């Protein structure tokens, strides 16, 4: 068993980055995720694994530093929250367009605008439907524990390099700020320069006589070529939809009602279903782990079993649209969620289920 530590979610991400052999982190402080860069600054991984840590002048700069380093074949990541993530939309669209692997973490806080620094889940659309311009998608992982904050870093990089695509970790202030026990995985050495060149033959590692020059670009002035490129991207996204759907089912076997919730809401919901079962109501929890690709088919299947679904999100109702698309009016689907940094209590969530779904 790996080393056990009590850590904040944000610290776990940072520690996992060092252990996963990440080459560089570029970022800009913002609550509630500044601990990521602070932890890294304190650990000085530059002196151990050689990982570079740099505070950029802005989120615009950091996402474009990511672009550069990722284009050169390195394992790189950044993290931010709300306003900072919005500033990265152009860069993310470029990264997706240029097919670069990287991991980007959003520790979501309440919006819109400057909003509040308390936890929220209101950036679901931005993450899953593409907040930037153009047709692109990212794999979106939603950790629901500090352990997953750690585990999804190496997983994220595996997927990012497998698909040459950005992977987005959609966390929130609750998961980022809480401490839990984490089992830390063992250190993975950073790729050597030779390994980088071999594993990423497309990367700008310097044109050697043996190969054509490598170009990282998202520009295709000729619409015909641009369309081919887009089709290639779409094929990749279809493959993700087929192969990368991840979810967890808790007490779903005998469930008559279902709560669908991810991340921190899934934690709340876990307690809600306990409360429900104490009252004799058979409720299950379906937790999407990948928000893109979204587990449409699995939820569709559940819709054949249960009588109604409550989407529990810290938002005005975003994921609920995907659930509705999956379920297609077969059964009742409703949203319940608090906003602006208020976190629904387990009891409140159960009450919502009773009123909105079981009710009539």
């Amino acid at each position: 068993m790996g080393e056990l530590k009590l850590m904040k979610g944000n610290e776990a991400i940072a520690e996992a980055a060092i252990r996963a052999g990440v080459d560089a982190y570029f970022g800009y402080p913002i609550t509630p995720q500044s601990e990521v860069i602070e932890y890294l600054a304190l650990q000085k991984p530059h002196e151990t694994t050689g990982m570079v840590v740099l505070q950029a002048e802005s989120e615009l700069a950091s996402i474009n530093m990511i672009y550069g380093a990722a284009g050169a074949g390195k394992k790189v990541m950044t993290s931010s929250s709300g306003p900072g993530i919005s500033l990265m939309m152009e860069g993310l669209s470029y990264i997706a367009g240029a097919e670069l692997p990287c991991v980007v973490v959003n520790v979501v806080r309440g919006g819109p605008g400057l909003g509040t620094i308390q936890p929220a889940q209101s950036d679901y659309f931005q993450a899953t439907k593409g907040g930037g311009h153009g047709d692109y998608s990212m794999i979106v992982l939603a950790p629901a524990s500090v352990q997953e904050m750690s585990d999804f870093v190496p997983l994220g990089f595996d997927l990012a390099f497998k698909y040459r695509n950005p992977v987005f970790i959609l966390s929130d202030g609750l998961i980022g700020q809480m401490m839990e026990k984490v089992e830390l995985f063992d250190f993975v050495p950073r790729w050597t320069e030779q390994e980088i060149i071999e594993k990423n033959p497309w990367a700008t590692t310097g044109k050697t006589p043996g190969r054509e020059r490598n170009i990282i670009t998202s520009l295709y002035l000729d619409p015909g070529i641009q369309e081919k490129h887009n089709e290639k991207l779409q094929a990749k996204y279809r493959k993700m939809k087929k192969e990368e759907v991840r979810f967890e089912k808790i007490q779903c076997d005998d469930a008559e009602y279902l709560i669908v919730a991810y991340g921190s809401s899934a934690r709340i919901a876990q307690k809600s279903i306990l409360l429900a079962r104490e009252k004799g109501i058979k409720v299950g929890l379906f937790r999407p782990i990948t928000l893109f690709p979204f587990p449409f088919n699995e939820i569709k299947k559940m819709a054949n079993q249960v009588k109604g679904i409550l989407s529990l999100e810290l938002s005005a109702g975003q994921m609920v649209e995907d659930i509705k698309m999956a379920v297609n009016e077969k059964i009742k689907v409703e949203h319940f969620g608090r906003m602006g940094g208020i976190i629904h209590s387990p009891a409140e969530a159960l009450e919502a289920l009773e009123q909105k779904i079981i009710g009539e």
Partner: protein
Amino acid sequence: MKDELYTDIVKEENLVYKKTSLMTDNILSYCPGCGHGTAHRIIMEIIDEFGIQKDTIGIAPVGCSVLAYDFMNIDMQQAAHGRAPAVATGIKRTWPKKIVFTYQGDGDLAAIGTAETIHTCNRGENFLIVFINNGIYGMTGGQMAPTTLPGMKSSTCPYGRDVDMMGHPLKIAELVALLPGTHLVSRQAVHTPAAVRKTKNIIKKAFEYQLKAKTGTCFVEIVSNCNSGWKMTPVQANKWMEENMFPYFPLGDIKIEGKLVQ
């Protein structure tokens, strides 16, 4: 000249100048007479001369030179508008032994990319920035740039740049020269043989620094033409540039080996 004489001279062994093979054979997408081509070529000549093709990574901006990667036979990345210095920072920090340079226009570097330019130079990122100042947004069809001269016309100041409304042309080289992070700041041109030679020497120096040690950011501005944007013939444009651009953007070294030239 007699044909025989000509064929006698035009022989491999008599070759004195030929486009470097580090320029690809793609036809340059630039307008006739545009300085971008010359600027590209001297950079590639230097890389060729140093034998560092395999160690060099270039960053193309958004601007007419967005397609620089079609012409420069090295590994390259195309960066978002204004963000080339951040992209280069990402590369150079993670590949400190590679030779890295950005190639950027005035809209890219001195308007939307101002923050990245200043902070890159302030951190003294150890790469070269080549800055093509043609006083206009060439690619998008001739809009006003931060460096458009007072009274000069563009499609977004069709009655001439009014400095009271739109500000004065920005001398960004003079600004970055003040930052401790810059090691070399120079302003040059590429419209005459002498200018080309001088510019090449300066850029060569910048590559040398980067090859040798971590010295800081090198920033070479090339005052260039945009005959399409200026609505002149190439020859007129070069003349106009000498008469109007050079007085405002005087050529010469501004900072050498970390010291301001005065």
